[in-house]
Structure formats: C-alpha cells, structure tokens
C-alpha cells in the first residue's frame, strides 16, 4: 500500500514527459510557425531525433540516400513532412515501454490508441477542425497513462491487481485501491500535472470512469465515450473487466446519438487501428 507521500515520490521517479512534445504541439498549432524553431525543438530531444531519423531512413520513404541529421531530413523530405511526422511520433514516444514483465501492456497500448482514434473520430463528427481533433487523439492516447505508468513501474503488484479485478469482477480502479492504495486516475492526474499538460488533459487522465453532470467539456465527454466504445467493441484491452452498458443521457444529447449509433459511424476503424499498429510495431522493431 502506498501513502500519498510515497505516491508522489513514485511519480517523481517516473520519466518526464518530453518537453519537446508539448512544445511541438504548441508551435505547430500555428500554420506559419518558423521551420527553424521546429528543428531546434526536435534537435534538443535526442530520442525524438533518433526516431525521426529511423523513420525517414525506413523503406516507407524509399530514399536513395542515408539521412543523418534533422536538418538534412528537412532538406530531403521537406519541413511539412518532418512536422507531421513529429506530430505523429511525439505522443507515441511517451508510451514506449519494455514488455518483459508486462504482458498486458501491448493490449493496454492498443486500447489507448483505439481511444485516441475513436475520440478523434468523435471530434471530427462534431465538426471540429483537424488541429482541434489532434488534441482529442493525444488526450485519448494519454487517458490511461496513469495505469501504464503503474504497470511499468510496479509490474508484479500490478499483475496481481489485474488478476484480482478479473477474479472478483470489480472495476480495475477499485482493485487498484485494494492492492496499491491508489488508483490509476490519481497517478495519471499527478503525472499530467508534473508534465505541465493542459488542464483539460489532466482532467481526462484523472477522471474518465465516473461521468458527472458538473462536466461541461466536449473533450472529456468524447474521451469517456471513446473509452466506452473501445471496451464495448473489444479493441485492445484496458484490463478493466467491468463494462458500462450505455452512455449518460447528457452525453447522448451532446453527441446527438446513442452508443450503438455512434459505434455504427466508426467506419474503417479496423483499418485505422491496423495502420497505427503497423506503425508502432515498425517503430519498436527498429529499436531492437
């Protein structure tokens, strides 16, 4: 069991959210951002730089020349391509993990991607712009990061927690309280604060299981809904054995549809997920 103080310490020892990621998101929200500013941010983050170079040199690009720096990459494939690649890689970077002691991590990651893809879909369905929809994707990708952090840093205890929730058929966050004394929502919110994420993201990471009337944000409603959809249709596995059967009425009104109807609008989710998965596997295998 962890006390609040121990929990804060645990979170303090977890990896920092790469500052480059939030800076890239902020910078590129402005379509006229200076290319050299973007390059500077990327070059300050060695891990992101490595990932970008691996990707630019991958068979996807089919370049006839080996690219060895970000500046060279910009010259050869263009600033726009590099910008969009950085935006794709950056959020995935945070979820990088070592899977030895964490056999369920892959499924959790897949669930996180599904929530990202579905909440972006919901945002587009509400006629939000592509830039705004990207926020929905990132928030979805990050919503369970508290869980993945607990799993990554306390793998044995967390495997027991998963087992307990399945055996007793109780919600995962309640099983966490029993075995760890804290739940992934608390850890997620603490991490999000530590990383200086926007308030909206902190709210999504700290509370995506209990829907409350006091909420007004579309983002939070979409994350809640996307989480439910991903669980209902069984894309990935959040580790939570308990499934909520329907959406709260105010969300139905806001999204102007009931759960089955929303699931019906998903279109080629399998295709989108496949692409995300192929991308992630490609990216991990490069690291081996």
């Amino acid at each position, binding site marked *: 069991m962890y006390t609040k103080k121990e929990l804060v310490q645990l979170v303090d020892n977890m990896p920092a959210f790469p500052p480059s990621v939030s800076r890239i998101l902020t910078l590129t929200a402005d379509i006229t951002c*200076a*290319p*050299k500013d973007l*390059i500077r941010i990327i070059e300050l983050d060695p891990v992101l730089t490595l990932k970008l170079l691996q*990707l630019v040199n*991958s*068979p*996807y*690009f*089919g*370049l*006839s*020349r080996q690219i060895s*720096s970000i*500046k*060279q990459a*910009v*010259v*050869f*494939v*263009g*600033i*726009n*391509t590099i910008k*969009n*690649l950085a935006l*794709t890689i950056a959020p995935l970077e945070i979820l990088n993990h070592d899977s030895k002691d964490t056999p369920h991590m892959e499924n959790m990651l897949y669930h996180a991607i599904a929530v990202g893809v579905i909440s972006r879909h919901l945002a587009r369905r509400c006629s939000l712009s592509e830039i705004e929809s990207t926020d929905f994707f990132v928030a979805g990708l990050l919503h369970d990061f508290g869980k993945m952090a607990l799993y990554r840093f306390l793998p044995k205890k967390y495997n027991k927690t998963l087992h307990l929730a399945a055996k007793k058929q109780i919600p995962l966050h309640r099983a966490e309280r029993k075995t760890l004394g804290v739940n992934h929502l608390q850890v997620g919110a603490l991490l999000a604060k530590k990383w200086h994420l926007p308030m909206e993201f902190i709210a999504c990471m700290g509370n995506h299981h209990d829907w409350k009337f006091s909420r007004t944000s579309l983002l939070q409603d979409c994350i809640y809904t996307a989480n439910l959809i991903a669980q209902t249709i069984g894309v990935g596995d959040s580790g939570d054995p308990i499934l909520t059967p329907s959406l709260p009425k105010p969300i139905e009104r806001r999204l102007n549809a009931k759960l089955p109807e929303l699931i019906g609008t998903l279109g080629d989710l399998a295709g989108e997920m496949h*692409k995300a998965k*192929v*991308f992630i596997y490609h990216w991990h295998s490069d690291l081996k």
Partner: protein
Amino acid sequence: MKLKFWGVRGSIATPGPTTVKYGGNTTCIEIRTDENDLIILDAGTGLFQLALTLFPELPLTCHLFITHTHWDHIQGLPFFIPSFIPGNILKIHGAYDPIARRDIREILSGQLQYCYFPVREAELRSKLEYITLKERQTIEIGSTTVTNILMNHPVLSFGYRIESHGKSIFFTGDHEPLFNIYEPADDEYEEYNQFMIQKNQSILEFIRGVEILIADTSYTLEDYPLKKGWGHSTFDNNIALAKAAGVKKLFFTHHEPTRSDDALERAFHEALERNPRQPGDPEYLLAMEGLVVEL
C-alpha cells in the same frame, strides 16, 4: 518520341474566356514513344480530354506516373474512361505517403469512395496495377526508361526523367528550389547550406543533358516572397536551372490559376527581358494545352 500537353494549369482548373489560349485544365502530359507506348505524367483534369482520344486504340496498356497526389495532379483519374472498359491495363506509379502511411493504391482508391464518386474501385473493369516507387527506381517500358528523383514540395513529390532511343524529357512535377531557412548570422546557416547545395546539385545532375525540361513555374519574382515555402518555382529559377543543366528546350508550366493569358505572356516576356537568351542557351516556351512537341 513525342509529347502533348493536356493540362498546364496549377492548383485548380480555370476554364473561362481569359484562359482560352493556354488552357484551364490541370497537369497532364501525354508521352508517346517511337513504339507508340503510352506514358502519362500526372492525372489532372486534362486527363479527361486525353481519354476521349484513346477509343480507337482500345484495348490499351497505359503507364501512368503520378508526381504527387495533390488534387490538381489526380483529379482527372476517376474520369479516365479506359479504366471502366475490360481489356485495358492501367499501371499507376507513385510515391508512398509516410505521413498518412498509405501507398499509392490506398491514396488513389480513396478517391473512389462512394461519397466522392459513384463508381467504386471494385467496379472498374480494366486491370489496375499500382506500383509504389522508391526514389531513383527505374521502370522499363519497352525500350524506354522512367526514373524518378524526390523534389521539394509539401508532400513527397517525384520528378520524372523519361529516356528513349537517346531522347530525354524531365518533368519537375511541383517543385520549389531549396532555400536556407536560417539567417546568415545563425550558427546553423552554413551546415544547412551544405545540405542544400548537395540536394540542389543532385537534382541538377539528374536533369543534366535532357532535351526537354518541363518545369513548375507558378510564380513571378514579384509573387514569390509571399508564397515562399508553398512548394513552387519561378520563371527566373527555372531559366537558371535549364541553363545549368544544359537542356535544349524549357517549357514553363503549372501556370498560376489567377493569371490570364495576357498576364501569363507578360510575365513570360518580362522574365526573358531579365534573362536575355545567349548563344547556346535553351529555347524558352510556355506550355499550352494541345501543344505537341516532337523530339
């Protein structure tokens, strides 16, 4: 080998009284080899008019090379009538899109989604083959070769060099010469400059010695400062490129959609006044819809 321009307009089709002479269709170039093999560069709206002339040749095999998949270079594709007719073979070549993580087939079949077009890809009766190209991959069509190089545009975009029986053509697709994103006072200026020189030089070497250069010339010198970074070139840059590469004829194409025939000719003549032709310099011409050039 001969070529015919079916679309010379950039960005968007611009039919109307002010573009009658040079034409309003977007990029499409037909190339016929001495063996009468059909090579088509880009599938802008000009492709539809080209398709209408192909009926006497059916069934046919058509080798289509897409420089990049922005709308003005693919919009004619769903209306390429031979693709509806059994017996025809359509070989479509282009780059992978690493951002959308889609190959050329996925990108182009997206055009045939029901919300965009009433005929789905599965309903096309011709044989469609998609070839996702790597940079500098050579495709052989009889005795002709088509090789590509990556140009500079806000998406992966290929320029194509076509060679046949000692004759050669290079088409830039959409291309902006690289510029330094740093100020001379910045520490990074020199390093970036080296990469730029390397890339510009590799493009120049790739083009060197072609008989005909067809180049994206969207802008005048006056237009350019406001449109820097949009991925298109100017009259003056292309004249310099053509001279350096030792080409015989330079065709300016991808005409800016707001430019009337008169304004286009004015811009052309002003560029030639700034760059008077010296002995041995290339011949400069404006690409015009319907124009046929024998090599």
